[in-house]
């Protein structure tokens, strides 16, 4: 069982430099072929400051930094038992290639269902850019299955 003492735990900040080549790779991996997601000039022509980070891209911050892996280790959730239950994004401002985004998260809830067969961890995050402007809020529900 996941120790409830982790409710309120704050993860270390994760800093992600948004690189064009990574966004191009993300586009390839998701089948995205529209030019504004691949080419800076096309992105500018479409009204963006540079190639935009796609709507779900900011998850990369805590994956790259290792904060996600450390959280699972702290909570003693084996990768083999982990499922993603829900994911939300609220968008406050654009993120383009060339920006640097800092994501700060905390554990807001831990609860279980089915007499503990499923445990849920809710992580809420704020993402700011290099000017400390809030660009997004994220909410993730992780599920640990014990069966």
């Amino acid at each position, binding site marked *: 069982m996941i120790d409830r003492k982790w409710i309120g735990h704050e993860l270390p900040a994760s800093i992600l430099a948004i690189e064009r080549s990574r966004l191009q*790779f993300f586009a390839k991996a*998701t089948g995205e072929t529209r030019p504004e997601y691949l080419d800076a000039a096309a992105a500018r022509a479409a009204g963006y400051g540079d190639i935009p980070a796609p709507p779900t891209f900011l*998850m990369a911050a805590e*994956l790259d930094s290792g904060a996600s892996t450390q959280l699972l280790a702290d909570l003693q959730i084996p990768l*083999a*038992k982990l499922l993603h239950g829900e994911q939300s*994004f*609220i968008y406050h401002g*654009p993120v383009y290639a060339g920006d640097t985004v800092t994501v700060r998260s905390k554990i807001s809830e831990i609860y279980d269902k089915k007499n503990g067969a499923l445990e849920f961890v809710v992580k809420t995050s704020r993402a700011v850019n290099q000017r400390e402007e809030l660009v997004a809020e994220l909410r993730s529900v992780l599920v640990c299955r014990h069966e």
Partner: protein
Amino acid sequence: MSAPSFDGVKVGDLLPTLQLPPVDRTMLALFAGASGDHNPIHIDTDFARRAGMQDVFAHGMLGMAWIARLITGWTPQSTLRRFDVRFLGITHLGNAMQCGGRVVEKLEQNRERCVRIEVQSANQFGQTKIVGEALVALP
């Protein structure tokens, strides 16, 4: 297709569906690298089997990224205000996902004219894997 406007959109309007090719291991390897999610359960069959799965399976966030493509294919990303999903089931190798969406409400939020869209993705057997909604502010 031109971008939708608030006045031009009606409740019940359908977004053009997005059909994806069947999930294969190459896709999962590429998404692991591009997303930063290196969990071996998505890329290493031996690990997946030891975890009690039949085989590797798709990252939930790959399915969400596809639905994001559905939305931004309809209206520019700059109009997106909110995007929420629930993952209902595992997307297996061979599943060919189809993403769809429907306008369910027109509303004003934070002094912007917005529409709420219900979105979902299902495989070729009609099994829904992800449901969710998005809020977009339309000109």
